[in-house]
């Protein structure tokens, strides 16, 4: 008995042939890797994400927004240029309707305006108590895992740096699910007011690209070259703030001032502890997304008249090039990182943060918790859009597979980076030799050293470092002296406005003489970790 297989319709053959041709054409036009990435994203988002049956409700806050579709059409007409004007909107929370203004935001990064999940801004005249901000950005998260920015800011906050409020939310637009987005406070003069820290508006400056000019991007200005390059975004009186900003900008752009004088002057204008924590956070988060031109905010602290920075758009593991020890992200950092005491303090802040975040597992716990909460919404989100290749224009729908892989890879990347950072900060092998009554310490590791010995009453010890007397500090029953490290600049010429430069630590060889004699029980300590060196 012969059995005939079912006959295939010619339509199927035509379809397969067209598919093959289109694959070849796209591979030829875009390159095979790019074409494959786009195709894979499309196939996976259709097949894999479609399997989810929507079990369980959202564990994210739901932002229920209504905008007249006709207004949305006008905003969509010529993106990114057409999305910048405000249209009326309503936001419903707990059954109460709050009036708002709605516009798209983000003209530089295509994931903000390409695809169906566009980033937007809501402005409230009278904001809801649950979102007590004049302006909030609701953005399409920049990574597949959706957590990079959120966690970068969280790390900064834990380290004590002021950060905008940031949370993942489930957005409903005109009654339809729009997917998971990131709600991101836009700092204004009310920054401290909404936090309960100050009863009135405070002066706030934004350091970013200028506004769009017709169908062109805004100006790209070196922020520290002129005070006018900072945009004032507060209603507080700006007279004092502007005078202080002008002084600060003048100080940063002055190349002749001696270091001591510059140090004292900077300390009289900047909340230095907050700024050093900010620098430490950039290092721990490993972000190069903040630079000479954008992503900066400065607030004039009403309590002491000093500026402090806000950590903004700190993408986690947006790698600082060349694994720098002291990354110079802008001209102010260029000067601050030349002060040895401040370098040490920054390093100590970074070390302490690593103990909490990495050592005690705070980061991993938080990542898991946020991921657990976002998961039901993420699974249900059929509107996930991001760059599926390295090409800016390749913003396409992606799948849960991308999100899962990205999450695992990001956690691994953070672990590896922090392991390295921990080794780097704690590494401190020092060679000590006695030469002609002096102690010679040398090391090629990057650690500053601290000498400690017990104070003997009535017996002052004078310490000469390379022949120069150094002031020791007495802390209780201990006398201490910090031997700071010298640094070298990576650029051809030492210039504060160069981009993506760094300071590297020079090897140490120092000769110590103790008068009248080497104190009993002298310990050499890693000044960052407070551990004895070997």
């Amino acid at each position, binding site marked *: 008995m012969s059995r005939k297989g079912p006959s295939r319709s010619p339509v199927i053959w035509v379809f397969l042939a067209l598919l093959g041709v289109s694959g070849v054409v796209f591979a030829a036009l875009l390159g095979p890797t790019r074409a494959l990435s786009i195709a894979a994203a499309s196939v996976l988002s259709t097949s894999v994400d479609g399997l989810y049956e929507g079990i369980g409700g959202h564990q994210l*806050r739901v932002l229920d927004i209504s905008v007249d579709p006709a207004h949305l059409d006008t905003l969509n007409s010529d993106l990114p240029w057409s999305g910048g004007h405000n249209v009326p909107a309503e936001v419903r929370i*707990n059954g109460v309707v709050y009036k708002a203004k709605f516009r798209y935001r983000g003209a530089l990064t295509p994931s903000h305006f390409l695809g169906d999940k566009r980033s937007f801004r809501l402005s409230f005249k009278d904001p809801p108590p649950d979102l007590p901000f004049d302006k909030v950005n609701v953005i399409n998260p920049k990574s597949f895992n959706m957590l990079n920015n959120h966690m970068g800011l969280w790390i900064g*906050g834990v380290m004590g*740096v*002021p*950060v905008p409020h940031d949370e993942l939310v489930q957005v409903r637009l005109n009654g339809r699910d729009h997917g998971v987005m990131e709600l991101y*406070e836009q700092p204004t003069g009310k920054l401290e007011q909404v936090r*309960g820290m100050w009863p009135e508006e405070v002066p706030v400056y934004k350091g970013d690209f200028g506004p769009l000019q017709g169908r062109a991007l805004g100006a790209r200005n070196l922020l520290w070259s002129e005070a006018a390059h900072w945009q004032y975004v507060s209603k507080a009186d700006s007279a004092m703030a502007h005078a202080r900003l002008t002084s600060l900008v003048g100080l940063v752009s002055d190349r002749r001032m001696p270091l001591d004088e510059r140090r*004292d002057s900077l300390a009289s204008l900047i909340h230095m502890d907050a700024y050093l924590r900010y620098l430490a956070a950039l290092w721990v988060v490993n972000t190069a997304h903040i630079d000479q031109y954008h992503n900066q905010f400065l607030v004039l602290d009403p309590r002491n008249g000093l500026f402090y920075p806000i950590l903004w758009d700190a993408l986690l593991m947006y790698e600082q090039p060349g694994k720098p020890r002291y990354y110079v992200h802008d001209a102010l950092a260029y000067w601050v990182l030349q002060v040895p005491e401040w370098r040490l303090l920054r390093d100590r802040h970074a070390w302490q943060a690593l103990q909490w975040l990495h050592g005690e597992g705070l980061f991993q716990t938080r990542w898991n918790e946020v991921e657990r*909460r976002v998961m039901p919404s993420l699974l249900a989100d059929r509107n996930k859009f991001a760059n599926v290749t390295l090409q800016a224009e390749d913003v396409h729908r992606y799948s849960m597979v991308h999100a899962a892989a990205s999450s695992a890879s990001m956690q691994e990347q953070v672990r590896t980076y922090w392991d390295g950072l921990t080794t780097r900060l704690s590494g401190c092998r020092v060679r000590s030799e006695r030469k002609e009554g002096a102690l010679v310490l040398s090391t090629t590791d990057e650690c500053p050293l601290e000498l400690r010995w017990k104070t003997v009453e009535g017996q002052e010890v004078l310490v000469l470092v390379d022949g120069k007397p150094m002031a020791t500090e007495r802390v209780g029953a201990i006398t201490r002296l910090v031997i700071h490290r010298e640094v070298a600049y990576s650029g051809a010429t030492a210039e504060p406005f160069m981009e993506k430069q760094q300071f590297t630590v020079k090897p140490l060889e120092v000769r110590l003489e103790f008068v009248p004699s080497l104190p009993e029980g002298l310990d050499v300590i890693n000044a960052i970790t407070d551990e004895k060196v070997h």
Partner: protein
Amino acid sequence: MRRSIERRSVGVVAWLVGSVAVVAVLVASFALVSPDRLAGVWPMGIRSTEVDGYAKWLDVSFSDSVGRPVPVYYISASGRSKRCSWEDHGRGWDRRWLEGEGYGDSVKVRRMRSEDGGLLVELKEGTLLREQRAFVLRPAGPGSIRQKYLEMLATEMGLLTPELTLVRVVSCGRDLGLYLKEEVVDAHFLQRRGMQDGSAFTSLFDPRTGYDLVPVIKGDSAASAGLRAIWTMGGKALPTPEDVGRSVDERALAAWLLLRWISSPEDPLNGEHVMGFRWGQRQVVPVYRSSRGDAMTTGPLTTYRSTPITVLLQDPDLRTLFRAVQDELLAKRGQLRERAEAIDRVWIPQLAEGDALEHTLARAGRMRDELLMVRLSQRDAFEQLARPLERMPGWSAYGGGTLMAQATLAPAASEDHLKTLLRMTKLQSVGDSIIFPRGKYTIAEDLLLPAGTHVVMLPGARLEIAPGRRVVCRGDLHIRGTRINPVFIRPMRDTEPFAGLEVIRDGGGEVRITGLHMSGGGAGGAAMLRVQGVERTVVEGAILDGKGGYPLLWVAGGDVFVTGGTATGGYLSFIQAGGTLKNLELRGAARGTGDAGVILDGSRMRIEGGSITRSTGTAVDVRNGAQVLLLGLRCEANTTALLAVDGSLVHADACRFVDNATVFELRSEKATRGATRVLLYTNEYLDNTRDRVVDARSSVLDGQRLDDKVRRGDQLIP
């Protein structure tokens, strides 16, 4: 055997038999199975709401209980928009007519922002409904009985808690059903419960919230500042229970935590919590209020924000108190159960509204037993409250806190000027101190001494400060003049005032001044001698001369002892400080009159002996809930002898009030501050033009005899 693949239609009879059989089984179940069993936990994912639904329609069991009538609140359409309350979804207030329980007036109504369907009602100033000025109306259902049980437990534990009652709301003629009426926790609520100096605030413990980091008391920036100081716990990176000190009423906190645990063991501190702040005692008192049905909740908290409340969860003393409160309640469990059953009898018929009464009662019994029998007896409740703490984001900028010495961070010290002085004068730098030995020192520029550097001025030191300049000390200050050999601080040129001498610290250290003659400061309205954030300030025998009523001595925070000195032509101001002012002579001017006196802002102070004379202003100005004892003080020829404002409490005994234009002026301006009171014991009044000016909320009362402990000084004030 082959199975037929032919499709067969299901007939009408089969449908009927199927439906009727199911309904019959359900009706029989509700009729025959005890309601207790029905109200229990069901297998196979059957939820209690489903059972309740079936019970509502299918429970035909008869019950003869009849509920008491519920008060009906009639709410009219809005005067402005003409819309009814259920039609209006805007955030703003509307004026509507409210009638109920003998009240009838126009009131302000808006939707609750923390719970869908709730209404907030605020009555007109001066009118009260059942003694309440504002209340919320929240939709009620059979489950609302749980909130009533919790209110009963809160009351039993002595916690402040708003009263819960049931009302029926009729809006524009439409019956909206039953609502829980709950008084709003505000200053009025606290004052009605004897907390005259109380202000209400809300707080969050969710570290995921990047706003409302520190609670704010609306309309009272002074109280907010005091609360902020408590909430930031000195800006420490890792605060401990010692840093919280006595700023939280631990007995109330233990009870509050227990109740939070009982009401929501899986997530006791999520959501918004309301508390009272006692301005006079600088103490936070938790208030129990039922949780809101916020639709925007985002899962349980795995960590808490670091606040005084959450830091105290590490305190073993609090654990002991918690256990004591728990044991106390356990011992009364029988009585509590009876009281809960009594509540059931009144509330359940009303909540069930005639439907499935037995079932609703059984469900309530389950709830009651779960609260009283299961949760209350859980011995590890306190341990289960604990979570890891997270500091608020940005704490380094908002609250301070450094790992290393402040010296490397503080604004530039005037090192050059200091070096010049060290070189050109007898000024000495010894260890961490700057010493001014006997001699003349010209301070030509602002002298900002490095942080942590103490200043010592020895007898005979004479500082002459250039116009508008100041000396800022960021360590301890010791001025060691004597009566014969004082320390002088004067302006470089007599007619041009310098700014002042300032001591600024972070809550520790000491200022100790003896034999100081200081004059000619206060340029630009600055305080001539300013002490801020110092733990202890002692001033003896100082002579302070000023002009124009500017602050001569201004002390913010800490303990203060000022004795045996004179001050002319200016004020001594004490803000949020506590201590004693003894035998001080204050005069308006050396000759004639001028502005002079003492300002006590939120302070707790004893003024003993001494005199205040010839002031064209107020001799003793007491404000913002300050508590003051005047003992043996002489006030003579002043415009006003005593001005007490905004919830302040003044005791006056053995004082002489002579020839003053007004002796007492009392005002209570801020609604959140409570009434101002003066208690008079035995005082002498002579030739005063007017005895008192007292507004409606303030009062002058006759006190009983002052306690001997207070008279002797064993107790600072009554």
